[in-house]
């Protein structure tokens, strides 16, 4: 009877766990693009527009925070129709600010090649998530968790646009 293979035997077998695997596509062009951009940036520093874009992204978090701080459901006060109206207008302001920032960034990076090819489907997914959250907020405008998720989803859209056009890789 054939002796069954053990995991230790398999681990020692280079054919089972090959050290090298070929990626299905050439990954170098994306890397080359990113490192040449990094070289340019190192010599020039960040552009003013880019700094504005980053600070604007941060302002969205402030907006979310403000909505939550002034949200009556957080302070334990009873809700009135006017409270709900305020929440709705706060969310609408947040959405408007974000959309404005996003459009500015897309214009800013319009002529720059992206570091990866599939960033637009990723952006569409995030936009779809934001749409679902907004629909949920129409029925429950004071839901702090939904507002926070919406803010985060928007932030991720900005991060994605920034990252693929001007990678700011994290420290180890």
């Amino acid at each position, binding site marked *: 009877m*054939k002796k*069954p*293979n*053990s*995991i230790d035997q*398999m*681990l020692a*077998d280079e*054919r*089972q*766990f*090959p*050290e*090298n*695997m*070929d*990626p*299905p*596509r050439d*990954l*170098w062009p*994306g*890397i*080359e693009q*990113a*490192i*040449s951009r*990094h*070289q340019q940036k190192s010599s020039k520093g960040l552009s003013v527009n880019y700094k504005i874009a980053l600070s604007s992204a941060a302002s969205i978090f402030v907006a979310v925070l403000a909505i939550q701080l002034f949200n009556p459901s957080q302070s334990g006060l009873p809700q009135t129709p006017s409270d709900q109206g305020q929440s709705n207008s706060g969310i609408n302001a947040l959405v408007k600010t974000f959309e404005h920032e996003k459009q500015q960034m897309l214009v800013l990076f319009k002529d720059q090649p992206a*570091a*990866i090819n*599939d960033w637009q489907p990723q952006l569409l997914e995030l936009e779809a*998530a934001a749409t679902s*959250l907004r629909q949920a907020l129409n029925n429950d405008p004071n839901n702090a968790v939904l507002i926070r*998720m919406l803010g*985060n*989803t928007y932030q*991720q859209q900005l991060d994605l646009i920034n990252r693929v056009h001007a*990678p700011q*890789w*994290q420290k*180890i």
Partner: protein
Amino acid sequence: MTAAVKQYDSEDPDYQLVDKALEGDSQAFQQLYLAHHKRVFALCLRMTASIESAEECTQEAFIKAWRKLSSFNKQSRFSTWLHTLTSRIVLDYLRKHKSWLKLVFSQEETHAPEPVDLASEPGDFDLSTMDSLLLKLPERARLVFVLHGIEGYRHVEIAEMLKISAGSSRAQYHRARNLLQEWLDDEEA
């Protein structure tokens, strides 16, 4: 430069390329990429269980390696440094990816989407029997198995990387081994 480093210098053929890359020579860095990308990709694929994620992590690993090259002090081989960097990048990638899924869908790990079926991805990626089984493991068990069983990290190192206890790392490793053995026996039966 110390004698010890000089000796190491002569042992690792990558050091010359590293020095050139540090001076801004992207062609030298491309040589480093060509020498190491297949191994980096293999590590990324085993850790992420997705071709697309593995490609993204591989690119990120080399871009970060370029940026961080000045922090490489030649106390180890370049490949060792690159692999440590890659492991951390993948873990960071998985954390971010998962936190987004949890945030948007409010779901627990067990309900997160299953890893992509590699056989259905374009190009019909060729995997060994063991690699195919490995990619079916639950994420944490898979990560521990790859880092300890294949990459040779100690459980205390893995514990620090995954922010779990060393005991938990050992338990996940045994869980992975048992599952793999069970699946392997089924395949051979």
